[in-house]
């Protein structure tokens, strides 16, 4: 079938602001949106720029706005979206070129929450024991692939980019609820900050945007509750 793509393009070396470009491509209903972007790039217009790597929703490179919603281009099939297909870069992070945004502010927020296991005790020479139930307490948030779909769908983040954002809180959650971790006091202190978890107004956009199906809003609520308990 013929598909029309409407892509918001921006070339920092030539454009003052973004503009729409239209492309027609032949596509199979089972193809991914990423496949269509590749068709344009490889066979029509090599200047079209976007990030991608794994092509099956595990690396987190290609979050973008497709027909108004944040998605991974490699995780959505042509038959699941209406034609013409409108594609834009995610919102709230500076656009560098076409569908590529500057990820550095996002990564900085992630690093702020001390996203690593903190435990100074000598674990000995075998594994620490942990029950499967204890694993399941934080398993959901271990799935995060740092794609930024959640953070860039958040209305609070759009208006105040100083907000640490859902993804960072998800990654804090992953450690706060890990029975092996002992760094939560410090971590929760950081999340108590004005730009921390309490800026969340439970809009739920993040949960619908998450391509890994993580219960993002619930994770944020869990962290808020834990922060209050920690006081």
């Amino acid at each position, binding site marked *: 079938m013929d598909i029309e793509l409407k892509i918001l393009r921006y070339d920092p*070396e030539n454009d003052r602001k973004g503009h729409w470009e239209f492309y027609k491509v032949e596509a199979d209903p089972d193809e991914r949106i990423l496949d269509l972007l590749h068709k344009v790039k490889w066979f029509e217009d090599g*200047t079209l*720029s976007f990030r991608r790597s*794994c092509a099956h929703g*595990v690396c987190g490179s290609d979050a973008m706005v497709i027909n108004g919603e944040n998605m991974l281009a490699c995780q959505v099939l042509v038959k699941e979206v209406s034609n013409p297909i409108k594609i834009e870069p995610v919102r709230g992070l500076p656009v560098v070129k076409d569908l590529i945004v500057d990820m550095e502010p996002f990564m900085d927020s992630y690093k702020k929450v001390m996203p*690593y296991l903190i435990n100074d005790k000598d674990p000995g020479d075998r594994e620490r024991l942990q029950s499967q139930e204890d694993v399941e307490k934080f398993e959901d948030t271990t799935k995060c692939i740092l794609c930024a779909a959640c953070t860039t769908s958040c209305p609070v983040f759009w208006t105040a980019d100083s907000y640490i954002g859902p993804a960072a809180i998800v990654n804090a959650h992953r450690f706060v609820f*890990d029975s092996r971790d002992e760094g939560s006091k410090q971590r929760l202190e950081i999340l108590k900050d004005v730009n921390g978890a309490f800026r969340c107004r439970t809009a739920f956009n993040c949960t619908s945007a998450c391509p890994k199906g993580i219960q993002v809003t619930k994770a944020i609520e869990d962290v808020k509750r834990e922060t209050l308990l920690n006081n």
Partner: protein
Amino acid sequence: MKIIKHSFDGVIVGAGGAGLRAAIEAAPHMKLAVITKLYPTRSHTGAAQGGMSAALANVEEDNWNWHAFDTVKGSDYLADQPAVDILCKEAIDAVIELEHWGLPFSRLENGKIAQRRFGGHTVKEGESPAFRACYAADRTGHMILQTLYQKCVSMGVEFFDEFQVLDIKIEDGVCKGVVAFELSTGDIHIFESRAVTFATGGFGRIFKVSSNAHSLTGDGPGILYQKGIPLEDMEFYQFHPTGIYRLGILLSEAARGEGGILRNKDGERFMERYAPSIKDLAPRDMVSRAIATEISQGNGAGPDSDYVYLDLTHLGAETIKKKLPDITDFVRTYVKIEPINEPIPVQPTAHYAMGGIPTDVNGRVLSDEKNTVLPGVYAAGEAACVSVHGANRLGTNSLLDIVVFGKRAGESMLEYVSKTKSTSISDSAADDLVNKINNLIEKDHTDEFSVGRIRNDLQESMEENAKIFRSEETLSKQTEILENLRERYENVTIFDKGKVFNTELMEAIELDYLLDMSESTVASALARKESRGAHSRQDFPDRDDGNFMKHSFAFKNGNSANLRYKDVELGKYEPMERKY
């Protein structure tokens, strides 16, 4: 285009499991940079699903010697046995260390790390399938990558994210550093560094249907190959039996480890005929050949009779949800069927490079078949060939390889850096790369010589002529096709002339490496007149230990390769016929 110079003691190229593990070892003791063309957490290690083997004996009696036996037998006796011993022995500490760093492994009732069965892994040298693969549901690679990156963040390791290394400088046989392209600006960066580790991953994108990321284009092996460093055992490329039909997205062997069954169009469990004792859990080369044979004999399913089924319907919703959540989600997302109720159409998919940059067990790169060490240059992970996988890798042994030998490469860098004085790289180090880029930018774009078209023809022809079954005829045909593609590549053109995120420019340079990988693969395959592991020659169906119990070393020679050979290091396991 600006040229910026940096000075480090050591540089690691690649931030997948191998690169990160090396960084953790080296970073505390030297000025180290990790350079990566993708954000570290986007490396393809994150796609690994099923598990990482170690004889922890958490479920049943196990022993690293049995793991070694299976690895050697699985390799069709081409693995170097002393290296395999290291892999299997150090596996245990490697898994424990990851747990200590926070890896959220799935657990047993008693709280220990859970272990599952996987192809080719047995207890007591073949008696029955072993529970040896440690896992975190079916996202083990994701958790390894996350955990190693988290560790690096906690240590303050210095990363250059979205910088693509495109050249190495070796003067008088000694490493001086690397040259990289910064994606977001188009600037060129010279990294002066006396130790460099390549951990750039695989190159599955030489084939059309692959489980590999678009970014897996063989950059590290390509950069060294172009400098005269040989590539080892390139004819051994693994095709994983269960890729999603047409897409190649992987469905882990864990699916069969948990009890999944392969069936042909008649619903027959055909693996019973090919590997009577371990059936669906036979090593990958055998299962992929069995599928290809079923298909060629008309037993394939579908309108084109070109796939078989992976049947999970008898496992029950609970097991699927708990143990195989991600891969069943892939099926729902991309095929729109419910694997709890329906069998899944699958076909073999290009998956893993057993071959690559030759190294010793300490990650030191070898510049010839006589084990001559290239000072200051190291390699680890899928880009390297130690060789622990020989002619066919067992599932779960690559995640192991990347941490065990990643660590060793890091240690070797340290040792080298502590013994040598800082080096100086000349300001002209960037000239070759600058010329290459200017040349591509200046040529007018033509459709005929576009990157997309040449690469498409490459992938389709490799798929056709150099996949599971090969022969003199198909390989000679492919040699000619490659010559033609190389000629077209000499004229390759790009449309994008800009500096910022010129990903088309990078794809053009990556295509050069893809061609290198293909040329060395086909030349090595043509010269190996036997069938062993993943390399099956229809005109030479048997293994020939007399002539080919050897590693091949392909040296770039124009569009083709000169081949030399090195004896396999044997050990306690005598080569025997591989039956399961």
